[in-house]
């Protein structure tokens, strides 16, 4: 669908280019909306933009979580305690009200990139914790000691010896984070707190709600984006679990019985 968006016959920012409120047909596979847009082509843009938010968020939060996780795990002591207290706080905090507050205040300058940055700044905590615990277990292994005793500096150890072990976790959490941020985008958009002129899965649902799609009997307007979202998430989730299973040497070993 992403690739299809480049070939769309309609411009998503324009409305009333096609007859409105048509149910699904061959010409308009998902029907058209009360705003005169072809839902199928509109959704191709939505999926692309939603994935864009997800990927940018994932990259930003990855950078933070790797930095925090490695520092906390490697340095230990009070630095570790402070960093973990902060990340625990972020894990437990009800993020939605805070995000609502934040997006509410930034509503004027809200666009996809800003949204992704905000989500990235809030979405790192749990993964930082995972990375830290991995580093902690690595730190106790003998090759780290060998490196320390042989006088290698700690930065070098962190980058060269630990990062390779941490990367599989980072990868696994990336997809999880992707799902989270796309879910949040949907949520915030539905509340009308993102840039509503950009098609995303969330704004699709927002407009459907705004026009009372269900009450008006335009059921496909709300069903199509909901189904597309569900399928997209499920697909990503299954991809995530299977990659995870492959990456995690323990599950692989269990399967081979080694």
């Amino acid at each position, binding site marked *: 669908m992403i690739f299809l968006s480049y070939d769309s016959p309609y411009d998503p920012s324009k409305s009333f280019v096609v007859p409105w409120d048509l149910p699904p047909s061959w010409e308009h596979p998902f029907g058209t909306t009360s705003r005169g847009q072809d839902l199928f082509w509109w959704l191709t843009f939505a999926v692309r933009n939603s994935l864009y938010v997800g990927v940018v968020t994932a990259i930003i939060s990855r950078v933070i979580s790797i930095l925090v996780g490695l520092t906390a795990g490697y340095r230990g002591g009070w630095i570790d305690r402070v960093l973990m*207290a902060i990340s625990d*706080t972020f894990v*437990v905090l009800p993020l939605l009200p805070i995000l609502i*507050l934040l997006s509410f205040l930034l509503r*004027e300058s809200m666009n996809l990139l800003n949204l992704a940055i905000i989500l990235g700044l809030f979405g790192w905590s749990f993964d930082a914790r995972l990375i830290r615990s991995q580093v902690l277990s690595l730190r106790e292994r003998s090759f780290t000691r060998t490196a320390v005793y042989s006088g290698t500096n700690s930065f070098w150890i962190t980058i060269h010896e630990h990062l390779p072990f941490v990367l599989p976790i980072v990868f696994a959490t990336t997809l999880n984070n992707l799902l989270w941020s796309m879910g949040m985008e949907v949520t915030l958009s539905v509340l009308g707190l993102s840039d509503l002129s950009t098609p995303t899965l969330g704004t699709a649902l927002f407009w459907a709600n705004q026009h009372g799609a269900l009450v008006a009997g335009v059921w496909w307007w*709300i069903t199509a984006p909901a189904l597309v979202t569900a399928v997209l998430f*499920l697909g990503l989730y299954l991809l995530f*679990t299977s990659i995870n299973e492959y990456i995690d040497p323990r599950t692989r070993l269990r399967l081979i019985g080694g």
Partner: protein
Amino acid sequence: MRKFVLRYLIPRIIQYLTLIFVGITLTYIIPRLAPTNPVEAQVSMMIARGSSLDPDAIEAMRAALTELYGLSGSPVEQYFAFWSRLFRGDLGPSLGNFPTPVSEMIGQALPYTLRLLIPALIISWIFGNFFGALSSYYPENKALNVVEVLGQVVRSIPYYIVAIVLLVVFSYFIPIFPFSGAYPIGTRPDWSSLDFILTYLEHSVLPAATLILVGFGGWFVGMKSLTSNIISEDYVVYAEIVGLKKRNILVQYIMRTAMLPQLTALAMSLGTVFSGALIMEVVFGYPGVGSLAIRAVYSNDYSMIMGITIYSIIGVATAVFLIDLLYPLFDPRVRYQ
């Protein structure tokens, strides 16, 4: 006992206070980072929307806003003033429903949210864990495998979508459940009438089902992977070699221990679950805190959003703290160190 207090209790209390401190400080800092002057923006927005407020009320509102944003005095003074107002429980007046206090409105909406959230949370936690453990212990059982697939599906999809799907299916295509709200429009809540309670329950079925379904999926999947690790623990293998009954092993050896990390996970996930509940309320038009929040967004009710944020932080932090306090009752390793 002293060790317990030092090693367990005091760190938890510190964590509790940090959580509240960081959360509240965030809500203090965020508005200050906003590019526009919030007071003037608010006031002009109110005027632009043609509110029929007289100049005195606008002045009062401006004063309230300045006070609310804590914009008088130096940043340090502002920060302390912010805290001292919180301690008095004063969150200022709602701007959408001026001058009803924010805390009063939240106080009315909160019971709806809690009456839905708490039972749903408990039910999904218990059932999700129970069936997750079962499915891991009896991997060949077909019915459980079907449940697992369902759990995986529901778990991966955002709350909002699950809610919409249920809504579309069960009140649009198969209209067995009401569309929205907690009771029919025009009815007054009357807790002494059985009829009212029944319609209230009927209206709560779909929202509750959403929360339970999503929660169930999450706990199910989590418990299953936990249990598959515990099954290979020495004491479970031993119990099997000893020849204990399967049911005994499942309940006393597997569930008993797997429950503990799940209890911690429950505490860790409260924030997320709470956020999910807010969203779900919006979909179903359920008159809880979530609907309050969305109305506040539409009516630019800054103080209400602020109040809800602060309430949520304190509420979630307290719930987490309570679970942490209960935890030692279930885990002797923490109790006797």
